[in-house]
């Protein structure tokens, strides 16, 4: 019972985080739109709005981690300055309640308020500070249809004093009436050069040594999502610096953090299935259970993978990449394998047993590759 006894209320506000422990994603977020990398078209358009201060309702869409939220936040900061930012900008993301009731209360009441007169900026710079407010709805595609519907009217009614910016991944999930009220801006996936330069910049700012292999592993495992790469980098540095003396970060660490199955394991599995893997053409490197053939070999290998605790969907996803992108497998065999992968993905989404489906996929690949 002692566990639940209340003590004096702590003054610690729940959002207060020690700067040393602040997520790097927040710490290194671009402060101006010029800092945002790799979205030339969008930035050009937005730069103009800074000058003319006539902002439309906006819809930013694109894959995650490409800079959508950063852009709008940077823009808002440049428009209003840090002092007015708090009372001119409302940000709601997927972690906040955004049901229809909140739309009706919170958003509406914020949208209604006339913008307060601009205070003189404390840092001396003059901000454009146009006479409207901005509401940012992050991850808007997870709002229900009803909530989105309730937004339409608000957007229209208060358009003079409030501009909306919706940020989402799938523009198809935004209802048509809403999308038609906004100008759409597409955010393209980042290319690896800009990503790696950004990561190196952060690493040096935080005084961490990272080798080029680590950077490329970071880019690989995050799939074009800069936010993810930065988060992995932070976790990796946390782990490595926790020991004394700090251990350098290796690509393997990144893979563990990302929950990615090591390439060696995938290649080994592929080999057992009869898919020759180009990289290791070592003749001496025979599969350890050469004695077992066919079914038993595959079964044993699958059990081994499961014992390592790797996620089945992750394993299959990587195996899929290996096979489908294989340089020499005939297309017909690839097609048969693709079918197996698709069925397994559906089954795993439905919560089926992992081992059975990895085995099933393995056996089907084995059959496709060794027969026909």
């Amino acid at each position, binding site marked *: *019972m002692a566990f639940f*006894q*209340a*003590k004096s*209320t702590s003054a610690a506000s*729940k959002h207060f985080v020690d700067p040393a422990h602040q997520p790097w994603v927040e710490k290194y977020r671009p402060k101006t739109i010029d800092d945002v990398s790799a979205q030339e078209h969008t930035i050009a358009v937005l730069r103009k709005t800074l000058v003319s201060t006539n902002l439309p309702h906006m819809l930013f869409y694109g894959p995650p981690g490409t800079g959508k939220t950063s852009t709008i936040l940077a823009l808002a900061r440049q428009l209003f300055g840090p002092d007015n930012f708090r009372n001119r900008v409302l940000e709601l993301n*997927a*972690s*906040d*309640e*955004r*049901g*229809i009731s909140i739309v009706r209360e919170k958003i509406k009441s914020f949208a209604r308020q006339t913008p307060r007169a601009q205070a003189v900026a404390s840092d001396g710079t003059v901000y454009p500070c146009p006479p409207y407010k901005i509401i940012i709805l992050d991850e808007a595609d*997870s*709002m*229900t249809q*009803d*909530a989105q519907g309730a937004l339409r009217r608000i957007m229209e009614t208060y358009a003079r004093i409030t501009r909306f910016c919706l940020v989402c991944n799938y523009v198809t999930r935004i209802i048509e009436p809403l999308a038609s009220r906004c100008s759409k801006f597409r955010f393209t996936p980042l290319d690896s050069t800009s990503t790696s330069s950004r990561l190196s910049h952060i690493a040096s700012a935080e005084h961490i040594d990272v080798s080029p292999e680590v950077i490329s592993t970071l880019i690989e495992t995050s799939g074009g999502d800069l936010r993810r790469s930065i988060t992995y980098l932070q976790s990796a540095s946390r782990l490595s610096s926790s020991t004394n003396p700090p251990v350098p970060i290796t690509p393997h660490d990144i893979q563990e953090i990302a929950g990615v199955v090591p390439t060696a394991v995938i290649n080994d599995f592929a080999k057992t299935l009869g898919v020759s893997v180009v990289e290791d053409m070592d003749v001496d490197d025979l599969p350890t259970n050469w004695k077992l053939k066919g079914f038993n070999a595959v079964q044993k290998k699958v059990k081994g993978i499961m014992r390592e605790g790797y996620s089945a969907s992750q394993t299959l996803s990587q195996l899929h990449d290996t096979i489908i992108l294989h340089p020499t497998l005939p297309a017909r065999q690839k097609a048969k394998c693709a079918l197996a992968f698709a069925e397994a993905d559906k089954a795993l989404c439905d919560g089926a047993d992992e081992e059975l489906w990895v085995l099933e996929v393995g056996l089907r690949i084995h059959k496709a590759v060794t027969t026909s």
Partner: protein
Amino acid sequence: MRRRAMGLWTTRYAPQSLKEICGNKGQVDKLQQWLHDWSDSSKCGFKKPGRDAMNVCRAVMITGPPGIGKTTSAHLCAKLEGFAPIELDASDACKWDEHQQPVVRWMDGWVETMRQTQQESESPIRRVSSWTKSTACPLVTGGVGALNAFIKTKIPVICIANDRGAQKLKPLIANTFGMTFRRPEAQAVRSRIMTIAYKEKMKIPANVVDQLISGSQSEIRQVLNMLSTWRLSSSSMDFHEAKNLAKINEKYTILTPFDVTYKILGPYAFGPNVRETLGDKMELYFHDHSFVPFLIQIKHTENYLKTQPVKVRNLEGLPKMLKQLELMDQAASSISDADLVDALIHGTTLVIDAIACGVFDGGGYGGQNPMTFPRWLGQNSKQNKLSRQLGDVQVRMRLKVSGDKHEIRQSYIHALFPHIVKPLIDRGAAAVDDVIERMDGYYLSREDWDTVVELGVDTQKDDVVNKLIKPTTKTSYNSTDHPIPFHKARDLRKVPKKLLGGPAPDLEDVFDLDDEVVDVSDDEKKKVKDEDEVAADKLFQTSKPKTQSRKGKTTTVKGKKAQNFM
């Protein structure tokens, strides 16, 4: 009293003579005869059965489907025999209450009035009380009892009801002569209807009338109502109009789930000569859409293997085997499909649901099958019970052990068996102390021991095990104490906390947490807790002297342990 009322044809054309009554001729004659003989029978104390064996009864119970002429016949017979019938029905029930007394008094008072009137006038006026009661009547049993008592008075009573088998009517059955009225044949009804139609200047050919009659299942009242409504807009009707009209006015009789199941899975439900369309069969499903698919599913799956499919009857030997297996495979996999459909779309697209469950199951593998009670239900409840008990075991063991429920079942139960069950088998009562010690290590109690045994399968099955343990061992085990790691909340009478359901948030990924984290003041919380706990806490009862255990050690161990875990 003949009432030429304005609207209702049913009253306007109520039969005035026995000839005009449609159907049930024999019954009506008997009724009239009984009434005729009633006073004679009452004079000789209802001893002589009479021609139809009816005269031993003081009262008659007429049962049958609605709208076929029960009440009409009763009134008519009474009038013809010179009685002035008094009718009481469910709406009069409000005058009655549960107690017999006021009811009987009311009737007695009325009877008294009647008798007085009778004495005053010269002609014998006898009263017949006709009591209409439908099965839906909310009269409490007291009412039926009162009626029973009333029957013993000096007037003929005719009771009218719909369902002879109704529970409420049981007391009455013994005292009355039961008369079942059936739905009249179409010809019987047709001529009457034609006559009425003619009188109302409607042009309706005979086959159309037949359609109306069959559509309403010979319910004359219904037909008259339909016609009178139709008459307001048109004076003629053709075949299709009749059919539609009948269909619209169709009444749903509620079949029990068992009836439905029999209809769907019956021997000839899918034979070549069946007239019901697929649509009709699906309609059957809706009689009880939650239970019917369940019942069909279970009954069919449990029974499909016991029949021989029609398709293999002509084969022999290996081809027969193979074909049979193929069909079994198809049946089993469509049962699997049906379960999936049921799980995924239950409650939304019931129509498809109906097809899948009813038709797939009932269709492919038709054959004779005896209806046995579903085994699934029993096994399911057994599983739930054991699962709960297993949960209890796991909770107790949690202080020491890391596994979840399944791990406990699969590894630990088997591993504990040689330590807590086998010794009792091998060494009998001498092993009790060791067993208790082992169990104490995991805070297991007597119920948990039972659970461990109940969960065993195969060689460790509970009946096998229980046979091997001598009764003396059992008793000596039962007489020793176990320490308790914690009391179940329900034993402590703790107040359960209500979970606020609330509407499901209409956002996919988000649920609200209150923004303010309010700190309850320390003292308040503690005070409330103390008062409640001490009063309600069973553990604080003044301890009775504990039953003498075999080793004094056990008691002290218990005490010490109990302290730690409160």
